[in-house]
C-alpha cells in the first residue's frame, strides 16, 4: 500500500478516494451497497451457506418459521432420528468474539440439561461455519405473543372468574418451570410472551433459556422498538445494567401476568428509552384500575412481582407459583398490598423536593402516610403533600411561637409550598440568602403575606444574577435578636425601622441600606399624632412641661420622632412629670397583642388592655402618640385635641455587612421593580412601593436622632424651641 497521500480513484465510479479514508475503498460505492440490498432485513444470516440457509448435514430444512433478533428458526427434519425439530440458527456476527461464543455455548449447554415438561427441550448445541445453532423440540402451536394465542385470555370478559383462574394457572405453571431452571443455576433473563409457546392443549413451554439475552444484550437495547421489540419486559435492574438474579425472572413473570390481566404492559412508550426510564422510575398502575374486574389479590400478586426492589419481590419463582395456586384455591395469599409506608417511600423517591420538605418537618408520620396512601393519582398525592406541608408548617410555627425559641426559619421551597406552589427541584449551584422579619405576633400571617414578595424577589434575583437564587425566611420574635443575627451575618437581609438602622450603623458601619418601604393605604394610616385630652387645657407641645406622656415602644421610630418634636418644643424628659413606653415585648408575653404588624398598629390595638387613647381618656397620662387613623376614630367624641401631626417613614430593608455587592444590587433592583398591587398588599403594612434608600434620607434621620438624643439630657441645654 502506498503512502496515504497517494490519490486513488474508485475503479467503479471514478471519483477520488480521499487520502483520509481509512479503508482505502470508495466510501460512496460501499454505502451504495446498503441501498442496493434494500429488502433484506437488518438481521440476516452470514454470507456463507446455501441461500443463507444453514447447510447442516443431518438436518433437512422444511420451512422457515420465524425470525428474530437472534437469527432464523426453521422447522427441520433430523435425518438420523427422523424427527421434526426446531432449528435455531444464530446470526454469527453478534457472537463473533471467542469469549461471546464460549459464553453462548456454556449457557446453551446448561439450558440443554434442563428437563422439565414445561421447558422446550434442547437436543443439540453446535456451531456451523461460525454460526451457533440450537436444535429443539418442535412445539406445534403458537407463542403467547401471537394474537391468536392471546385472545382467549384477554378479550373474553375477565369478569368471568374462570378466565382469571386460567391466567393464574398458566403463570403458575410457567413460574414453576422457571423455578426448576433456577434451582439448576439457569436464569432465563428474557421472559416474555414470545418465549412462551402454547401447544395445542394450551400447555405452556418455555424456550430460549439463558441464551436470548446473551445474544441480545449487545443489540436488543440498541435496536429500535420496531426492529427488536421494546424493553417492556425488562426488569429495572436490567434496565440499569445491574447484575441479574432470579428476581429479574420473577419480574418478567409479573409483566406477563400484568399483560394477561390488563392487555397492557406495565410501562409503554413510543421510544425504548422512555420505556426504560419508566421501568426504572415509575410505579405501574394497579391492574384493578385498568380493568375493574381484575381480582384485587391477583393484582397484589402481580404488583409484588413488579416491585422496583428485587428483594421485595417473591423470594423465588416457586413462592410466586404457590401464591397463585393459593389464590386459585381461594385461600389467603401471602403477598400484601404495598402498605402506606412503602407507598410513601416510593413516592418520596419520585418527589425528592417535596419529600425532603415534608421529611424536614417531622410530621406525624401516621397521618401523612394515611393521607398519601389514600390518593391513587400522583396529582392528588402532590396536592395532599402540599396540604400536609402547609398545615404542618403552620402548626410548628405556632408551637415555636409558644416556646422560648427566638425565631422560626422556613426554607424558600417550603414557603412556596405553603403558598400552594409545588416546590422546584433543589438545584446544585443555587445561591441562598436569608431574609428576616420581626413578627411579635401572628407570625403565620406575616409569613404567608411575605411569600409572594419573596417569590418575586427570588425570581428577579435569579434572572438578574443568572443563577438560581433562593430567599429563605426567618421570623424573629424580637428585633433585638434579628439585629444581632444580621450583625453576625447569620441573616442577609432584615427589615428594620429607621432608628434601629441608625443604631446598628453606629456599631456596624458595613450594614448597607437597601430600600425604604413606602407606606401604603390612606395617608392617615401612615401618620401619627401627639394628642391630649380636651380637658387638659394643653394647646401646644411646649405646654407639656410638667405633664405626663405615653410613648410608643422605646425603640420605635415613632417614639424617636415624637421625642424629637418634644425637644424642638423645648420639652425634655426631666420636664415631664412622668412618662413611659408601651413595651411591646411585655404585651406579647402577656398575649395581649393580637394583630400588630407595625408599631403603629401596636399602639392602636383595640384589644390591648391599655391603648394610648384609653390611657389618655382614663386620665392615666396627659398626652400620647397614636396613629392618626386611631385618633380620628375617637375625635368624633370631641374629647381629644391634636397637638402635632407627623409622618412615619421608618421601615427599611437593609443588608448585612460583606453582602456581595451584586447580591445587594440585584436585591435592590428586584424589590424596587415590584409594583404588582397583589403582592404589595399581601405584605405586612401593605406598602405602596419600595424606594431606593438615599443618603439624603440617612442624613435626615441622623439629624432626628441627634435631636432625639437631647431628650434625655438636662432641660438647661441650649436648644432652640421651635415648637408650637
Amino acid at each position, binding site marked *: 500500500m502506498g503512502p496515504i497521500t497517494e490519490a486513488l480513484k474508485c475503479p467503479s465510479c471514478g471519483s477520488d478516494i480521499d*487520502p483520509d479514508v481509512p479503508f482505502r475503498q470508495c466510501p460512496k460505492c460501499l454505502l451504495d451497497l446498503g*441501498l442496493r440490498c434494500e429488502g433484506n432485513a437488518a438481521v440476516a444470516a452470514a454470507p456463507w451457506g446455501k441461500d443463507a440457509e444453514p447447510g447442516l448435514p443431518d438436518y433437512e430444512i422444511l420451512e422457515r418459521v420465524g425470525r428474530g433478533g437472534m437469527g432464523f428458526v426453521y422447522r427441520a427434519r433430523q435425518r438420523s432420528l427422523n424427527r421434526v425439530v426446531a432449528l435455531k440458527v444464530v446470526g454469527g456476527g453478534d457472537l463473533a468474539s471467542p469469549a461471546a461464543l464460549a459464553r453462548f455455548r456454556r449457557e446453551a449447554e446448561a439450558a440443554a440439561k434442563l428437563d422439565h415438561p414445561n421447558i422446550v427441550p434442547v437436543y443439540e448445541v453446535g456451531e456451523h461455519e461460525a454460526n451457533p445453532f440450537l436444535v429443539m423440540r418442535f412445539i406445534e402451536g403458537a407463542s403467547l405473543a401471537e394474537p391468536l394465542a392471546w385472545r382467549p385470555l384477554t378479550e373474553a370478559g375477565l369478569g368471568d372468574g374462570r378466565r382469571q383462574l386460567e391466567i393464574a394457572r398458566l403463570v403458575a405453571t410457567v413460574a414453576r418451570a422457571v423455578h426448576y431452571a433456577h434451582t439448576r443455576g439457569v436464569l432465563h433473563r428474557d421472559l416474555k410472551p414470545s418465549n412462551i409457546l402454547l401447544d395445542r392443549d394450551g400447555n405452556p413451554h418455555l424456550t430460549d433459556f439463558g441464551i436470548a439475552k446473551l445474544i441480545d444484550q449487545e443489540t436488543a437495547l440498541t435496536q429500535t422498538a420496531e426492529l427488536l421489540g421494546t424493553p417492556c419486559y425488562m426488569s429495572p435492574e436490567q434496565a440499569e445494567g445491574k447484575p441479574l438474579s432470579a428476581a429479574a425472572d420473577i419480574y418478567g413473570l409479573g409483566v406477563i401476568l400484568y399483560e394477561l390481566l390488563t392487555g397492557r404492559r406495565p410501562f409503554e412508550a413510543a421510544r425504548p428509552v422512555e420505556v426504560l426510564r419508566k421501568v426504572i422510575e415509575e410505579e405501574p398502575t394497579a391492574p384493578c384500575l385498568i380493568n375493574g374486574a381484575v381480582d384485587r389479590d391477583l393484582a397484589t400478586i402481580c404488583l409484588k412481582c413488579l416491585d422496583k426492589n428485587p428483594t421485595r419481590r417473591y423470594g423465588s419463582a416457586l413462592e410466586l407459583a404457590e401464591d397463585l395456586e393459593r389464590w386459585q384455591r381461594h385461600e389467603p395469599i401471602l403477598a400484601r398490598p404495598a402498605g402506606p409506608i412503602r407507598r410513601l417511600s416510593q413516592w418520596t423517591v419520585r418527589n425528592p423536593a417535596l419529600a425532603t420538605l415534608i421529611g424536614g418537618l417531622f410530621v406525624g408520620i401516621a397521618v401523612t402516610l394515611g393521607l398519601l396512601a389514600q390518593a391513587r393519582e400522583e396529582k392528588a398525592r402532590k396536592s395532599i403533600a402540599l396540604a400536609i406541608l402547609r398545615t404542618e408548617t403552620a402548626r410548628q410555627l405556632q408551637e415555636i411561637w409558644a416556646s422560648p425559641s427566638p425565631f422560626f426559619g422556613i426554607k424558600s421551597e417550603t414557603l412556596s409550598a405553603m403558598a400552594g406552589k409545588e416546590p422546584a427541584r433543589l438545584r446544585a449551584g443555587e445561591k441562598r440568602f436569608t431574609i428576616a422579619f420581626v413578627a411579635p405576633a401572628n407570625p403565620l400571617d406575616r409569613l404567608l403575606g411575605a411569600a409572594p414578595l419573596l417569590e418575586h424577589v427570588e425570581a428577579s434575583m435569579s434572572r438578574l444574577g443568572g443563577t438560581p437564587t433562593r430567599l429563605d425566611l426567618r421570623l424573629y420574635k424580637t428585633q433585638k435578636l434579628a439585629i444581632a443575627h444580621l450583625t453576625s451575618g447569620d441573616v442577609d437581609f432584615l427589615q428594620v425601622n429607621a432608628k434601629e438602622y441608625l443604631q446598628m450603623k453606629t456599631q456596624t458601619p458595613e450594614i448597607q441600606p437597601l430600600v425604604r418601604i413606602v407606606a401604603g393605604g390612606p395617608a392617615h394610616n401612615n401618620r401619627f399624632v401627639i394628642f391630649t385630652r380636651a380637658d387638659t387645657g394643653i394647646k401646644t407641645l411646649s405646654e407639656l412641661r410638667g405633664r405626663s406622656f405615653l410613648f410608643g415602644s422605646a425603640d420605635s421610630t415613632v417614639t424617636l420622632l415624637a421625642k424629637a418634636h418634644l425637644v424642638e418644643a423645648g420639652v425634655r424628659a426631666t420636664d415631664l412629670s412622668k412618662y413611659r413606653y408601651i413595651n411591646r415585648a411585655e404585651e406579647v408575653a402577656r398575649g395581649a397583642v393580637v394583630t400588630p404588624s407595625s408599631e403603629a398598629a401596636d399602639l392602636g390595638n383595640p384589644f390591648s388592655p391599655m391603648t394610648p387613647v384609653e390611657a389618655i381618656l382614663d386620665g392615666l397620662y396627659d398626652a400620647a402618640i397614636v396613629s392618626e387613623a386611631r385618633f380620628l376614630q375617637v375625635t368624633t367624641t370631641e374629647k381629644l385635641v391634636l397637638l402635632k401631626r407627623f409622618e412615619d417613614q421608618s421601615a427599611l430593608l437593609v443588608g448585612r455587612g460583606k453582602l456581595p455587592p451584586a447580591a445587594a444590587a440585584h436585591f435592590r433592583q428586584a424589590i424596587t421593580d415590584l409594583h404588582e398591587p397583589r403582592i404589595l398588599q399581601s405584605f405586612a403594612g401593605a406598602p405602596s412601593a419600595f424606594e431606593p434608600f438615599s443618603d439624603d434620607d440617612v442624613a435626615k434621620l441622623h439629624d432626628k436622632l441627634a435631636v432625639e438624643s437631647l431628650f434625655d439630657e438636662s432641660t438647661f441645654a441650649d436648644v432652640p424651641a421651635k415648637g408650637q
Partner: protein
Amino acid sequence: MLPAHEQGTGSVTQAARFGTTQWSLVLRAGQGAEEALFKLCQIYWPPLYAFIRRRGHPLDEAQDLTQGFFAHVLEHRALDTVAPAKGRFRSFLLVSLKHFLDNEWHKTHAIKRGGRQVLISWESLKPHERDLLGPSDHMTPEKAFNRRWALMLLERVMDRLRTECVAAHKGEMFEEIKEHLTGDAGGKSYREIAAQFGTTEGAVKVTVHRLRRRFGELVREQVGRTVEKPEEINEEIRELFAALN
C-alpha cells in the same frame, strides 16, 4: 500490510467493536455508567472531533473539547436532558455537541474536565486521524461531521464483515477479495484468487456477490441502530452519501 486493528496497536478502531451503541449507551452514560460513556466515546469521537476541528479549534483544544464533551455528558447527564426531537442519533449527537460548544462556560472548564479522565488516547493516533479536517477547505463543520460519521460507519461495517469472515475461516480470502466489494476493476483477478485458494473462478464470484450483499445488510443494520424507524434507513444512507460528495 494488515489493517491497524489487526496489528494490535491499541488503535481506537480496535476497541470500537461493532455492537453496543446509541440510546442504551446514552441512557446508561446519563446514569453515570462510566463504561458506557467510554464505549460511546470510543465509537463516536471521530465525527465529533472532525466537527470541532472544522470549527477552527487547534488540535490540542479540539482534543480537549472532544474529551470535555464526553465528560460533560457524564457529569451533567447532558445527552439525557437534550431530548432528541427526532430519532436520528447522528443529528441528536450533533445538536448536543453544538449545545456544548455554544455554551461559553465550557471554554474555561474544558481542559480541566477533559483532563480528569483520559477517554481517547490521542498519542496512539496516526497523523491523519489526529487531523480529521477532511480534504476540502470549503467543508462546513456539519459536512465534516457527517462525512466522518459515514466513514466511521463504513469502517465498522468493514471490521464486522472481516470478523465474520475470520470466524468462518475465510479471513485470508476476505483480504484478497474485499477490494472487489466496490467493483471488479481493482485488486487481484478472480482467476488469481481462485488459484490461490484452490477453488473455481465461479465460486469466487459467488463469494464476492455474497460479500457485497452482506456488506449492504450490515450497513443497513448499523444505520438502523441510529434511526427511529426502519423507513428512515434509506433517507439516512442518502444523507450520508451526500456528505461524501
